Structure formats: structure tokens, C-alpha cells
């Protein structure tokens, strides 16, 4: 048995349960919880059982209506009992059968009578005082008691299986979410490593040209470097000291030809420290590039520069 998690909600159900007053969904919920094993509830139930016993002790006073007749009743029953004892079968202890009744009080139609309660089956062989014919009454009752026990056990099992299925579902949802996160990270790492590999290949290329870009306007303290791999017609761009932009803005890198005509080389964001890196992987007309510049543009970039210049060189 796996123990289930105790919740303060059960503390509120236990007094009514000990009294036999719990019913409906609350009874099923608590019964399933107890069946799964909860040391907190078990020890609380013991205390509550003692409380209900106290109530029984208080109630165990003869009502006045019976006070006069009591000695006669008590004497008569004692005589009948002592005459009956030799004929009574002694029941060997049945392994934990009573627990079933304790753990799973029957549903609302037959609420738990007491805690701890003896099994309802015990009624089977008791002979009523008044009428021998009434023995016949016990047979359907005993059968009903067996059915109630079976039904109660079924309920407990169902509740336990239901809880287990729910737990496994939750676990599988968590695992799926975790797998998704890991996949995303793996994809990011792969992209990052590809970018690094390309950066290295550009920087390590023979005849790489370096162009420095200086901060302009509000990006006064910023600096940038473009490394152009002339042979493979690609470049990598680094910047530092650039101020962070609002969510609707982005930085855009341009190269300019002999006629100062700008062409976009991509957009980029800066990190928290104002640094940025961009691999320019479009084939560059390296012979014609005269200058590099960075402007601030609306999010997504523009075909032609529209915003203020942040770096130029």
C-alpha cells in the first residue's frame, strides 16, 4: 500500500466519520484515503474513537422508563444466554476481515455504525430471543451484508485505482512537459553550436578583414566589429555597449556599396550586458562593400534604414 498525502481537509471529515455521519462523496474520498494508508488520520481516528466511546459511556445509563423493569430483563437475558452458550459455535479469528468494514464504511444507505465496528456478518448465527421463525430474516440480511462488503471493497478498489490512474496521468503530463523543455534547449544548443562553428570558421579564415564600427548619438559608448571572410563571402558581427531597446524595436545591420546604397545584413538583439553577435550568412558582395552601419528599426527590421544610426564604420 502506498500512503497518500494527508490534507487538512481530512481533519474536518474525521469527526463525522468516527460518529458514522459521513456520507456521499466525502465518505468515498476519505475511505479511499484511509485505504491508501495515512498515519496522521489513523492516529486521529484512534483519539476520535475514544471520544465516541466516551459518548457511549455517557449514554449507557438506563432510561427512567426502564429502571423498574431492568433487574427482571437483565436476569432473564442472563439465564437465556447461559443456556445458549454451549450451543454457540466459537468463531476463530478471521484475518483482518473487520478492517474491511472499518476502512470502507458502506455508502449512505448503510452508514458506518461505529468505529471500530465488528463485521456485519457476525449477525449470521445469532438467535433472536423472541421467535425461532425469525431466523429466516437473517439469511437475506447476511446476504445483503456480504453484498454490501463486496460493494464497499469494490468502491475502495475503484477509488484507489482511480487515484493511481490520476497520479500516473499527472506524472506523464509532467514528463511530457519536461521533455518539451529539454528538446527546446537541445535545439537552442545545436543552433548555438552551429553559429559558433561558423563564427570560428570565419574568424579563422585566411585573409579575414576587420572593420571597426564606432558608437553614434545615444549609443556613444558602443563599439562594433565586423569580420569578413573574403574567400567564403560571409561575415560575423560583434557589438558591445549598445543600450537595450523596447520590445517594439530592434537593431539592424547594413552594408553600404560604392554609391552608399544600404543592404540589410540582418537584425539582432543585445543581451543584458549590451552585447550582441550576428553571423551574416547571406553571400556578400565583398568587393563592393565600403562601409557597415547599425540603425534602430521597428521590430522585424526594414528593407531600407529609417531609424537613427547607432554604429557606423
Amino acid at each position, binding site marked *: 500500500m502506498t500512503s497518500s498525502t494527508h490534507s487538512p481537509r481530512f481533519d474536518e471529515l474525521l469527526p463525522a466519520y468516527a460518529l458514522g455521519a459521513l*456520507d456521499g462523496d466525502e465518505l468515498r474520498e476519505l475511505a479511499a484515503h484511509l485505504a491508501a494508508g495515512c498515519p496522521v488520520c489513523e492516529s486521529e481516528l484512534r483519539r476520535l474513537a475514544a471520544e465516541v466511546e466516551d459518548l457511549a459511556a455517557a449514554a449507557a445509563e438506563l432510561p427512567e422508563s426502564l429502571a423498574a423493569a431492568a433487574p427482571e430483563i437483565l436476569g432473564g437475558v442472563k439465564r437465556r444466554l447461559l443456556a445458549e452458550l454451549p450451543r454457540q459455535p466459537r468463531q476463530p479469528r478471521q484475518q483482518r476481515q473487520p478492517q474491511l468494514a472499518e476502512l470502507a464504511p458502506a455508502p449512505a444507505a448503510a452508514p458506518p455504525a461505529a468505529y471500530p465496528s465488528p463485521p*456485519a456478518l457476525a449477525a449470521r448465527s445469532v438467535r433472536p430471543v423472541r421467535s425461532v421463525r425469525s431466523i429466516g430474516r437473517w439469511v437475506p440480511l447476511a446476504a445483503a451484508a456480504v453484498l454490501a462488503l463486496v460493494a464497499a471493497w469494490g468502491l475502495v478498489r475503484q477509488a484507489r485505482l482511480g487515484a493511481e490512474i490520476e497520479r500516473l496521468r499527472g506524472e506523464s503530463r509532467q514528463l511530457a512537459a519536461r521533455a518539451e523543455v529539454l528538446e527546446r534547449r537541445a535545439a537552442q544548443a545545436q543552433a548555438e553550436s552551429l553559429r559558433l562553428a561558423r563564427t570560428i570558421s570565419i574568424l579563422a579564415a585566411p585573409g579575414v578583414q576587420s572593420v571597426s564600427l564606432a558608437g553614434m548619438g545615444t549609443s556613444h559608448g558602443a563599439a562594433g566589429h565586423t569580420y569578413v571572410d573574403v574567400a567564403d563571402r560571409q561575415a560575423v558581427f560583434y557589438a558591445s555597449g549598445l543600450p537595450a531597446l523596447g520590445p517594439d524595436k530592434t537593431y539592424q545591420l547594413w552594408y553600404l556599396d560604392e554609391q552608399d546604397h544600404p543592404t540589410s545584413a540582418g537584425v539582432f538583439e543585445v543581451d543584458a550586458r549590451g552585447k550582441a553577435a550576428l553571423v551574416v550568412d547571406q553571400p556578400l558582395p565583398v568587393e563592393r562593400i565600403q562601409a557597415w552601419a547599425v540603425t534602430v528599426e521597428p521590430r522585424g527590421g526594414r528593407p531600407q534604414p529609417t531609424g537613427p544610426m547607432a554604429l557606423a564604420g
Partner: protein
Amino acid sequence: MQDEGHGTLGMQSQELEDSFLIGQISAGDQEAFARFYDLHAAAVLGLVARVLGARGEAEEVLQEVFLQVWRQSDRYEAGRSTPRGWLLMLARSRALDRLRRRDARGRHEQEAVADATFPRLVSPLGTRRLEEAQRRERICSALNLLSPEQRRCIELAFFEGLTHTQIAERLAAPLGTVKSRILLGMNKLRQALSTRP
């Protein structure tokens, strides 16, 4: 002076004797059974009579309960309750079974619920044992701390075996109100009884 000592010592010796008797009954000792009956039958009769009201049925249940003791005394678990507590819970359980069967047959007796309440005061009659009288007095005064509504809800659950929903129907009260009356009532009893002498 002698009585003061008897209060606590008497309780312990009573429990000791009861435990011994239960062991003997398990071994088939009829004399032990007769002694156990003499000690506790009046309490069992009082309890089942309060649940059932009708004298005839109370008598039958009294017999059923003690037959069950004879056959199943080995099911008594010493760590869980005193022998007398176990016996009384057995008695309540059997009396409620009988009550439900009677309700199922649609037979209602006039006197059925006449005494289905906890006694307001401990009667000096019939309480031969001082320690028992003291215990009941303590519980009765704890019960007196409850509001009449809390007390009524607990009585309906205890004496008639009614559930939350059935009590709400009987009293024409909202279910949530009944639930909180029982919870608060039981907690109040717990507090009062936890300061045991």
C-alpha cells in the same frame, strides 16, 4: 477518604479485571462470561434502550451483543480501547443495525426515540461504581458545553445512526450547517474531555 483512592485505583482494577475476563471468555470460560455480563449488562441495556426505545427489541439486542462477545471476544484489541468501551461500541453498532432494519420495514414505534438523548444529569440510581459515575459526570458536563443545536446533531448521529444528509433532512437545516455543527461539537467535546483528571 477511601472513596477518593477508589476513584482512580478502582478504574484501573476494573480495566484489569475486564481484560482478564475477556481473555478467559476467549478460552471458553462461562463463569468469566457470567461475571463480565453482571458487570456491564446494565450499561449495555441502557445504551441499546436509548437507541431503540422499545423494551422488547432492547432485550433482544442485549442478548445478541453478549452472544457476540462470547463468540468474538478474541477480536478485542487491547491497544485500541478498554473492554467496556469495545463492548459499548459493539452494543451501539448492533442497536443501530436493528434500528435500520426496523426503519427498512417501515415499522415505527411510538417510544422509539423517547430516550434517544444523552442524560442531562447522572442519576445516582444504578451507578454502583463511583468511577463510572465520575466519568459520566465529566462527559455530561462536557456535553453541556455544546449548543442545543450541536448536541441535537450529535445525538441524531449517535443514537439514530443518521448521516449528515439525513440529519439535514430531519431538521430541515442546510447541509453545511449540519456539517459544521457536528465538527464544532465534536471538537468542543474533545477539548473538554482532553483535560482528564
